[in-house]
Structures are given as structure tokens and as C-alpha cells.
């Protein structure tokens, strides 16, 4: 079984110049249209080449205050209002500013056990499938898990 057998050939993407607000909106749309929770999206340039990935973890990391350990000791916080202010200040930030650029990819003919090994060792949950310079799909850890279970159990 190979990447091409379990990958999702239809996927949502972002542009590097999208704002973080647009990315959040796209996560919502992708989850609705793909019928499952989407936690990471691929970022492609104007030539449809993969240039990065962004996950909800990246966005959460960015919007959380730098000295979060001080927050944890303050009980009388109006967290909602403060977070609103913080989010307001990050509107000008683009996807390219916080995306991961060093992306691990596989080929369509990469074996699923190799992909499983990559995901475990590199702590990644989704891997883009690239053929030459073309992005052809994405393998989610949930799909990999389900296929392996069906095969061996």
C-alpha cells in the first residue's frame, strides 16, 4: 500500500499572502467541505508549488501572549476582552509570516509504513504528496491509521 492509495486528492490550500483571519476562515470551510476536522492546510504559491504548511497549532502559538506563565497566576482576568485585543493586533500578519517552510513531503509511490515512520519520528500529522513539483494530495494520520487497522485487524 502506497501514499497514492490512501491520500486525499482533493484538498484546500492557502496563499502565502492570506491573512491569519482568512486562514482561520479557510480552516472552517475546509472542515465543512471535507466532512472532518482539518487542523493543517498546505500553502501554495502562484505557480501551485508547495511553499509551506500552517496548522492551528501555529496560529494558537502566535496569538498566545509571550509571557503566558505570568497570566496563569492572575486570577482576576477578563480573558475574553484581552484576547479580543490581542487578536485585533494580529490582523495584519500573513500566512507566510508564521507558516512552517521546512515541509516534509512524500512521493505517490512512498510506502505507507515509511509514511507512518515519518509521522511518528517527526511528530507530524499530515504529509503532502508531491510528484515532481506538482502537489497531488495529502495523507492525514487519521486516514493512515484507518487503512492500517482495516488491513491488519
Amino acid at each position, binding site marked *: 500500500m502506497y501514499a497514492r492509495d490512501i491520500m486525499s486528492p482533493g484538498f484546500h490550500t492557502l496563499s502565502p499572502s492570506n491573512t491569519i483571519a482568512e486562514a482561520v476562515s479557510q480552516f472552517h470551510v475546509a472542515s465543512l467541505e471535507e466532512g472532518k476536522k482539518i487542523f493543517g492546510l498546505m500553502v501554495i504559491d502562484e505557480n501551485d508549488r508547495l511553499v509551506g504548511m500552517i496548522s492551528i497549532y501555529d496560529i494558537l*502559538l502566535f496569538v498566545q501572549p*509571550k509571557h503566558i506563565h*505570568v497570566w496563569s*497566576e492572575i486570577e*482576576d*482576568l477578563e480573558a475574553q476582552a484581552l484576547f479580543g485585543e490581542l487578536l485585533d493586533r494580529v490582523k495584519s500578519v500573513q500566512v507566510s*509570516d508564521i507558516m512552517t517552510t521546512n515541509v516534509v513531503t512524500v512521493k505517490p509511490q512512498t510506502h505507507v509504513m515509511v509514511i507512518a515512520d515519518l509521522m511518528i519520528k517527526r511528530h507530524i500529522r499530515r504529509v503532502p504528496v508531491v510528484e515532481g513539483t506538482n502537489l497531488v494530495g495529502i495523507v492525514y494520520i487519521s486516514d493512515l491509521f484507518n487503512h492500517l487497522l482495516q488491513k491488519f485487524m
Partner: protein
Amino acid sequence: MPVAFSRDILQGLLVEEAMRRQVLRAPHDASLGNCVNQLIKFKANSLLIGDETGCPVGVISKTDIVGAFYAGLPVVETLSRDVMNGPPLTCFPDDELGVALDRMRKNGVHQLFVQGAEPCAVVGTLSYGDVVALLYRYCRACPKGAAGRSEAAGIEDRTRFLTVKEAMRTCVISCGPEEALAGVIEKLTANRLGAVLIEDGKGLPVGVISKTDIILAYHHGAGLEVEARSLMKSPAVTCDENSLLTDAIRQMFLKDVQRLFAYGADPSHIVGVLSLADFAQIRSGSCRACMASRMIGSP
């Protein structure tokens, strides 16, 4: 002959109590675009640059990237090794915080890298913000301090506590909204500032431009001719110069800013600026008892 010594609240506190364990690194052949990406993503002031073996050879800070922008270097093609400064300034986990602060002040840097036992091992970073966070936590735990009391509970005797006025700088550098980015960078560099206030024609504060905003603009491909108004964060985060220092520090942490602009009797007129670096350097908690405990005497 008696030997003078100084005492302050940082006495006995070590770097390891305030430092961050996360060290952001980039290879010496990383593009400036990648460096900006790391600095923005992790809200850091500088990156440790390593050679082929990963051994630290230099540092690249927001100031260096602003300089590259001003010099017209391309953000994608320029490599970190072409812009970095070296070698990294370091301290050790068991150094006294006061010694580390002296080192930062003397060298004009906002961050030190914490050296581990091995020659190439860097185990953390220490910034002014980290020192202030530690001081603030001590203040909150102190039964005599104002930091641990909620505003609702009230503070009966405000004279016991330090105010923003006593720690702020009164020299505020500002630009007009129509000033070109090149001019803003020149003012930041000439005055060794992290941010500049933007004031309109009537002297009213309308926003702030920091080095973070400038490196973001560089990353987005903006030119040096763009007007300050298109990049500034608005409104500027302000406080009353008579507000308690502890409240101002709390505001900086909660709003995730490194400085507050202070106004006097007229809220539309800025009279000073208080930064995390200023507060770290006074080496005191936020009440007068702490400040008074700083003394010079003989052992």
C-alpha cells in the same frame, strides 16, 4: 579601607530562575525571509545562527534585519551569515541576574544566550521581559506589594507604591503619519529604540511603529517609501503617568507589548515611555520598600 557594595532585589537570584529554555536557531545559510518567519512566529528578538555542525557562530536580531531592509538587501536571496553579528553574547545559568543585566546594558542588547556545560551547548535565553516577569511574580507573591491585590479590592495607601512616572523615560521620539518608512528607521536607529510613536499634525498620538512592524513590512515586500500610517499599529497602548508601576507592568504582559506610552494631565499628550527594559534595569519590585532596600554599604 572599607569596600563598598550594592544591594538590590535581584541579589541572590540566578539566571536559571528567569531564563527561557527555548532557543530559536537558524542555519547560517537560511534566508532572511526564513529568519523573519521564525522571529515573528515565536515572538523572539533574535535567533542563534549555527554553522554546518550546528555550533553557534552568530546572532541575527530584529535590528539586523531592519538594517538589511534599509540597505536594500533582498529578503529572499540574502543569507543570515551576511547580516548576523557574532559571536553570541552569553551568560551561564548560575550567573547572578544582576551580572547578566549589566552585560545586556553594557553591550546594548536585549537578550543573552545561556551557555551550557559543553562549548557549543546553548540551553536557553534571557531577555529583559523574562527578568521583569520574574520580578512581577515575586511582587505578586509579596504580601506588602500591590501586584497581588485586585483593583476591586483597592489600595489604601498609594504613596507606598512606585508609579510609572518614576521609571519612565521622558524623551519620546515621534514621527508624523506621512513620514516615509526610511525616515522612521533612521529615527529608530539613531536613538536605539524598539518603537517610535506616530503623532498627527496636532501632536496627538495616533499609533506606534515597532521593529516587528518593519520586519513584517520587509517580509511582505513593502518599500522604504511607504508612509508610516500604512504600517502603524493603532491606537498606541497608553497609560497614566500616575498609575501604579505594577498596573503598567501587568498591562504590558496582558497586552503583549514591550512598552507603554504615558500621558500626563491631558490624556492626548504623551509625556513619557516605559519599557520592560527600563523596569528591569531599576532592579526593584514595584513598591518603595523594595526600592529603598537598594543600598550601598560596607560588608
